[in-house]
């Protein structure tokens, strides 16, 4: 039982990191950024290229090198997110919602097959692996890398929350999500705030990509697709547009999957978690913490 909860929380923290980007972007410009899962993939590949080009160095430096790579990958994927927003989404900001949605799907394919064309379509194995002791806590096997990755995820999420709640940019983000035109009239530089939103969301996804590569050891150009869908689901469960909701939604989805798999068997896991999702949304369409959505509508 404790093992199920732990496994669910661990996978859930990956979902949560990616779900944040979905939720932030949706909250601020009502765009379902389907390219977001591929930003995660991009982060994994940027980390891979950096680690490979350093040769034997990362092995010697261990976790330290990995943390540096993590930060640089976050900066680069953040930059990629900003560029995507600038060139693919901003020109369409006044276009019908569907046009932007299709553009997002287009960006997603561009990223997938762009990476596939440059890096090859074969799966790559990460040059540095997170390995560490395993210890037993209340019957669950918990490994040091898992604890480390969850700690990194928690630090990233807490700092994001503080940033949004306590800083002026955060306040601007919240006000744009309530009323973009009003915020503009109040003197907020809307474009720059949206740029920052994309930077932060993409950086978090990039971080998740590097962490996944270093922990699981295998990356490929399609790795962002399925987890992107799951993260989107997590964002909806939590109440899309709501930051705490995205974090909570990720963990809830991870737990649902873990329970579904162990109660009904692996082949029924996705059936179980999505049936629960449908039931839940029927009863509570705004998600767990979705009050802000209704407020906006």
């Amino acid at each position, binding site marked *: 039982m404790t*093992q*199920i909860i732990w*496994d669910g929380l*661990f*996978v859930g923290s*990956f979902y949560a990191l990616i779900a944040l980007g979905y939720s932030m972007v949706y909250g601020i410009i009502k765009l379902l950024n389907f390219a977001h899962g591929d930003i995660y993939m991009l982060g994994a590949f940027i980390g891979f290229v950096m680690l490979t080009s350093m040769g034997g160095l990362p092995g010697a430096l261990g976790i330290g090198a990995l943390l540096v790579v993590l930060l640089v990958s976050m900066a680069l994927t953040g930059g990629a997110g900003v560029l995507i927003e600038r060139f693919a989404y901003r020109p369409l900001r006044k276009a019908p919602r569907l046009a932007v949605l299709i553009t997002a799907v287009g960006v997603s394919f561009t990223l997938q097959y762009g990476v596939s064309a440059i890096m*090859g*379509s*074969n*799966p790559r*194995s990460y040059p540095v*692996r997170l390995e560490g002791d*395993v210890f037993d806590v209340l019957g669950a*096997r918990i*490994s040091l890398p898992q604890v480390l990755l969850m700690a990194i995820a928690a630090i990233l999420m807490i700092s994001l929350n503080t940033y949004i709640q306590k800083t002026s940019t955060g306040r601007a983000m919240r006000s744009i999500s309530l009323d973009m035109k009003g915020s503009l009239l109040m003197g907020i530089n809307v474009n720059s705030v949206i740029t920052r939103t994309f930077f932060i969301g993409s950086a978090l996804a990039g971080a998740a990509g590097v962490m*996944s590569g270093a922990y*699981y*050891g*295998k990356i*490929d150009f*399609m*790795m962002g*697709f*399925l*987890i992107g869908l799951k993260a989107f689901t997590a964002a909806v469960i939590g109440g899309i547009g709501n930051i705490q909701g995205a974090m909570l939604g990720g963990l809830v989805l991870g737990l649902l*999957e*873990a329970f579904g*798999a*162990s109660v009904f*068997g*692996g*082949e029924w*896991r*996705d059936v179980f978690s999505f049936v629960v999702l449908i039931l839940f949304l029927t009863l509570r369409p705004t998600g767990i913490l979705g009050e802000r959505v209704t407020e906006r509508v």
Partner: protein
Amino acid sequence: MRISKRSTLLLGVATAMLFATSGCSGGLLGGDDAGSDDTGPVKLAMVVPISGPSAPSGEYMSNAAQLAVDEINEAGGVLDGRQLELLVEDEACDAQQGVASANKAVSAGAVVSVGGYCSGATLPQLPIFEEANVPMIIPAANSQDLVKAGKKNVFLVNGTGNQQSNAALEYMLKTGVASVALVDDNDSYAVDITAETKRLIEEDGTITVALSTSVTPGESDYSAAVRDIMSANPELVYWTGYYQEGGLIINQLRNAGFTGQIMVADGSVDASISEIAGANAEGVLATMTQTPDTLEGGGDWIASYEDAFGSAPGPFSLQSYDAVRLAAHAIDEAGSTDGDAIIAALEAVDGFKMFSGPLTFTADHTLSSGGFVILSVQDGAFALEDDLS
């Protein structure tokens, strides 16, 4: 296979359209194409993955086929001096791409197909080659579905899922395993082997199936399957999917402290499995047909392959090489490039010498003996563990 999830609808429409067009062109061109060109090269189609996750296997196959073509041409070609020509087209392990490539090969005038790697991508090609009356000698794809389709132009020179399950059971019985867990990735090929293995094990009755489960391919975290396996606590885990997920599952199982044996099916026999799982892949068993490295007397053949392509052959190289030789043999026996005559010649083959042993087809066009052996990972590469004889 992986891409199809997003574009299932698109794919369905596209496949339907391709089927429709292939029907037309087959009807219009099929008749006069065979007789009109009696002197040019005899074209063999080879639809194998050139792109996509299975691209390395495609290269092992097309290189080996080319080697056979070159050798046959040097020895005088087929049908009294006509040269063989190999048309390599991309299958990409994707149904849509496979169908497009099959159509391309048929319209280029191929008389025999010697390709087919991913069963899921090969299956939709069957009607296209059947329509054009092109015999298919399939070197790698081996799903039971290919046999069940019951097409008279389809011949399998790789052992089938059924024969693979038999080999798996034989080894389990031989080593005295008491309980097994069967894990697949929901792909038709993998489910096929698990279902068959389960049936055989239950029929036999000495081994218990502690767990039979599926995972979703394309994810990174397989902790759910690992947890199920750990609590079922089998002595052997048999994974029947492909190597990307296989590598991850082996790694996660070992990291979770699983000490029993792990066995994989032929879709996971790839050098990448030990790159992904690292040292955890050591000792992993596999049910597989002979590869050049594991075959006695394969050394000379490997040398000539390396000479021609500058790299070593891999899984399914032998079958592809033999498929081309078999095609040439059948064309010569038939005395023409007419599809029906070649099919009759293939059915009449009796004891044709191949790497996997003398070949004779059964009534449903599969090998009379499968030729499966047990390999194991030693120092990061697959080597022969037990030839089950």
